[in-house]
């Protein structure tokens, strides 16, 4: 038996939709079997909450008297440089931006206490943030300096926008060198002292729809505590990554570009983070509903941590030098047990992605749907899938010869 999104939406509107989260579905399928579960269940909700560096916001501050055009000048928000290469008062800020006077890794490992991710958290919390701008001045935009407090409530538009979120799967990081290293996957102790991973595994959105059969451009989702949409596939989207027999990618694979109204979001789900010795980022909370259109789609949502594998990568060598070598593969069940076995050695494991927060998101989304305030959307176009020409190539490095230096 199959259903349409329209049919599921009318059940949601009449308060009759059966919605469960991606953890609950596992036991339901074990008890009832695929066929009965597919009949009864209308939506499975997923969730993830983890640092996602390619996140950002854009906003419009409104025109001052006299006018200033921020473009091609320099604009700082709480001392963090923002991008102003657009029209006069449009500003974009990325999660990983740092104040010019942050010492970075000059005192190694750097602290990275405040950056773009933290500005986004402060702004979404409703705190005043300072804007300090210089510009060159024109006949129509004469002002050259602007210093003012701004607040999200006063902005004309404030929009969350990401180039890449929601990685379908991710490397497991470790360190074979003799010294501690500081990475975007956390602090890695020497001589395989620990491994870190960053996925919600069995409740993570794209691991529950591995071939993007329901998730596509235009899909409405939980984003940062509000509602958002998939705007495109994310950068480095790699649907042709290695997969297991059940279709689940064993490497990075798919990614999403997301968009949503920042004014609806809140700081519980957009949180600035500091990665010691590495930089700043933003914890982003995302939850995607999966409409159970047929048995095949339901079967994908019943995926468990035992069925999901990832590659252990040496961040002291293979990763920095962009080599394909991996040290082995482990399941998320092993990773979540707290210890993995690798080459006869037991290694303690830790996560950068919060499973309990991911589950909380899947439950919030479930409540939104059950209460009828969140309807599902039909994708307007598919994401590039397995077998498409979409791939992630390394840089084609071509040194620039500068002969004509006068």
């Amino acid at each position, binding site marked *: 038996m199959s259903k349409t999104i329209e049919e599921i939406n009318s059940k949601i509107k009449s308060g009759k939709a059966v919605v469960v989260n991606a953890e609950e579905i596992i036991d339901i399928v074990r008890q009832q079997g695929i066929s009965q579960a597919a009949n009864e269940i209308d939506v499975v909700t997923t969730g993830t*909450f*983890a*640092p996602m560096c390619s996140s950002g916001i854009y906003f419009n501050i409104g025109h001052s008297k006299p006018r200033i055009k921020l473009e091609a000048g320099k604009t700082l928000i709480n001392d963090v440089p923002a991008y102003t290469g657009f029209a006069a008062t449009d500003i974009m800020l990325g999660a990983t931006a740092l104040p010019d006077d942050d010492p970075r890794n000059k005192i190694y*490992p750097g*602290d990275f*206490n405040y950056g773009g991710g933290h500005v986004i958290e402060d702004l979404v919390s409703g705190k005043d943030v300072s804007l300090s701008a210089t510009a060159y001045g024109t006949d129509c935009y004469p002002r050259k300096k602007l210093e003012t407090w701004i607040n999200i409530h006063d902005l004309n538009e404030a929009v969350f926008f990401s180039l890449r979120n929601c990685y379908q799967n991710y490397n497991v990081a470790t360190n074979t060198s003799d010294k501690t290293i500081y990475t975007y996957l*956390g*602090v890695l*102790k020497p001589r395989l*002292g*620990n*491994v*870190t991973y960053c996925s919600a595994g069995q409740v993570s959105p794209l691991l529950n729809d591995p071939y993007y059969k329901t998730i596509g451009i235009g899909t409405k989702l939980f984003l940062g505590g509000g509602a958002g949409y998939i705007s495109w596939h994310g950068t480095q989207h790699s649907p042709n990554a290695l997969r297991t027999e059940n279709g689940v990618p064993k490497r990075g694979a798919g990614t999403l570009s997301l968009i949503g109204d920042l004014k609806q979001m809140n700081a519980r789900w957009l*949180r*600035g*983070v*500091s*990665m*010691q010795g590495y930089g700043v*980022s933003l*914890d982003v909370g995302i939850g995607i509903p999966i409409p159970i259109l047929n048995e095949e789609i339901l079967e994908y949502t019943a995926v468990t941590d035992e069925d999901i594998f990832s590659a252990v990568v040496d961040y002291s060598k293979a990763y920095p030098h962009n080599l394909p070598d991996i040290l082995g593969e482990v399941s998320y069940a092993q990773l*979540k047990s*707290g210890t993995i076995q690798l080459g006869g050695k037991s290694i*303690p*494991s*830790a*996560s*950068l*992605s*919060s*499973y*309990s*927060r991911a*589950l909380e998101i899947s439950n919030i989304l479930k409540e939104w749907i059950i209460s009828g305030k969140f309807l599902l959307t039909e994708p307007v176009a598919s994401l590039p899938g397995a077998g498409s020409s979409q791939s992630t190539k390394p840089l084609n490095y071509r040194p620039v010869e500068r002969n004509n230096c006068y």
Partner: protein
Amino acid sequence: MNVSRKIVLHFPARLVEEAIAYRLVKEYNLRFNILKASIIPDSEGFVVLELSGDQEDYDRGIHFLTKTGVKIEALSQNVVRNEDKCTHCGACLTICPTGAFEVESKSRKVLFIHDRCIACSNCIKACPPRAMELHF
């Protein structure tokens, strides 16, 4: 009754080369775990240790230390978790040398078991949302 306390011992220069810890074990039947130490011959030194044993032995040991001229202070550094900031990701789990963080299996929330914390501060900067705070 057993007691276990984290204390800081300040040694005057004349005591730096004395086998004081040895006597705590041998004569007072106490166990110790050195958390931090700085001992330089001919100058003042300090040791931060967790001292444990029977209450009576402990009191006698402390009396002995005081008598020899060691200045004793309670460890005033205290690591606490800001519950509003913790996202329960678990990045701290493999950073803590004493296993003070554990994942509760059902909810997968990260527990901070304060009794196991030796205030080494390793977790403070390794925590991405900076939820671990050092209080004095």
